């Protein structure tokens, strides 16, 4: 009897030791475990760690987990369906291995990996479920961080790729323009010499015919007009080809622009409206080049209005609005007309060199304006409502071109 008691006590001690070692091991490994009664559907045992992951003590967990809805209230809402599905699998006899997030009563969340197996009775019925759970929050957070980093990296790569692509397009366009510029420059210059010979010879013929009644005057006038037209085209080509760098002057834009427009012939029927919203501050720009750009746009606008909008009696009635504005980021010259506007299908092409809708156009006007504005470090914007006119904005950096751009 005494031996029995001693043996019993020894056995109890060994069991306690074994339990203690298991507790220590699971705590060290951060592994929790539980035993579930599948017949009565209640928790039989819950380890400290398994309870901790759910933000509860083992007794609290057992009390709460035995009420099914309350148990699911400990699972992150986004993971509840997955956990329910796994529990159903387990009840039907399949082992499970899942990861989900818990939500503790105080609102904390842990990532948990849970492995559970069913225990069958001799008839093959699931009587118990034994599960082990591990807190994998650190690993999962690291994974999440890596995922986010990856996404961010991909986004950065996409952004950089887009930047590079646009830079490459700009470079390609500039290179194409440079080649085109060289070619047009050479051709234009070579044409000027023979054109000069034609012009002097026409003058000779005109002199020799004077008073002879040969009736050549109209023919000679036509030749003269055509020479002028050729010369204008050559000037446009040379303007486009010009790449000599900018000669900067510092001046207030509005009096300068007013002088430029005074020299410009504005057709009858077109009224000019002014709007100046600058503080009169001086801006650095190349007056020859900017004049070329402004005149080009003004001529286009006048042409659009004289050809486009005529009253019943055939007269021109148009309004040219010139606005100068300055804000912290740029200085703008806006030139708006009340002509027919630019058709939507033409608008994307107006900056293509050699694209023209006019029978006598070289298609270099607006590309030249764009080149000039870009050389100034600014740009050109075109807005148009078909039927309501066009609005062209030439803009410069707030102080105009900086010294680095200017070539003395």
């Amino acid at each position: 009897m005494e031996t029995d008691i001693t043996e019993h006590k020894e056995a109890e001690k060994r069991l306690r030791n074994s339990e203690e070692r298991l507790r220590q091991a699971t705590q060290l490994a951060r592994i929790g475990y539980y035993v579930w009664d599948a017949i009565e559907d209640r928790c039989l045992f819950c380890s400290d760690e398994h309870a901790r992951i759910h933000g509860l003590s083992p007794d609290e967990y057992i009390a709460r987990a035995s009420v099914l809805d309350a148990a699911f209230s400990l699972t992150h809402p986004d993971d509840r369906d997955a956990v329910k599905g796994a529990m159903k699998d387990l009840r039907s006899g399949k082992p499970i291995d899942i990861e989900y997030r818990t939500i503790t009563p105080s609102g904390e969340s842990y990532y948990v990996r849970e492995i559970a197996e069913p225990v069958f009775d001799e008839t093959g019925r699931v009587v118990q479920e034994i599960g082990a759970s591990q807190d994998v929050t650190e690993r999962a957070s690291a994974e999440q961080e890596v995922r986010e980093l990856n996404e961010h990296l991909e986004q950065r790569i996409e952004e950089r790729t887009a930047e590079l692509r646009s830079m490459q397009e700009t470079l390609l366009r500039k290179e194409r323009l440079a080649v085109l510029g060289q070619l047009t420059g050479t051709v234009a210059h070579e044409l000027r010499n023979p054109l000069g010979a034609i012009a002097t010879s026409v003058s000779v013929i005109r002199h020799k015919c004077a008073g002879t009644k040969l009736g050549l005057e109209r023919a000679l006038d036509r030749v003269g007009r055509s020479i002028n037209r050729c010369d204008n085209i050559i000037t446009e080509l040379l303007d486009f080809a010009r790449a000599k760098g900018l000669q900067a002057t510092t001046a207030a834009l509005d009096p300068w622009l007013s002088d430029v427009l005074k020299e410009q012939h504005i057709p009858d029927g077109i009224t000019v409206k002014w709007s100046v919203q600058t503080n009169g501050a001086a801006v650095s720009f190349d007056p020859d080049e900017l004049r070329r750009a402004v005149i080009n746009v003004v001529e286009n606008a006048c042409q659009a209005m004289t050809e486009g909008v005529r009253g019943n009696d055939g007269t021109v009635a148009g309004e040219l609005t010139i606005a100068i504005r300055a804000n912290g980021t740029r200085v703008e010259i806006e030139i708006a007309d009340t002509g027919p506007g630019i058709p939507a299908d033409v608008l994307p092409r107006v900056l293509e060199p050699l694209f023209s809708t006019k029978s006598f156009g070289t298609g270099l006007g607006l590309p030249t304006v764009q080149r000039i504005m870009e050389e100034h470090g600014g740009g050109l914007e075109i807005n148009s409502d078909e039927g309501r006119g066009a609005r062209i904005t030439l803009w410069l950096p707030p102080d105009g071109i900086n010294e680095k751009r200017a070539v003395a």
Partner: protein
Amino acid sequence: MTTSKLLIIDDDRDFAEGLAEFLELCGHDVDIAFTGEGGIEAAGKDAYDAILIDIGLPGVNGVECLREIRQSDPKARCFMLTGYSADHIAKLGLEAGAAEILTKPIDPEALSRRFCTVKNGI
């Protein structure tokens, strides 16, 4: 109306001859040279009221030609002809002593009137 004695130095024969013919019709006395060397030689032999020199001559170019003529005769009134409207070329010509830069195509009528007055130094 006063007319002038003029020299045109241009390798573009059609242009030079056309301009010379016209200026002669206007009463001027015009000689032509088709090379820089020929021009310098002509300028050395005769006295001209004005000399028109194309900038793009083969061999001795227009600016060199102008410089040499002005060296022999600092009072020579020289006009530089160019197909370019670029400023740097004009600057070269003016530095070499050109009275004016004329950009092709020039207006022959205006040029002739110009030479009617050049003699008077206006």
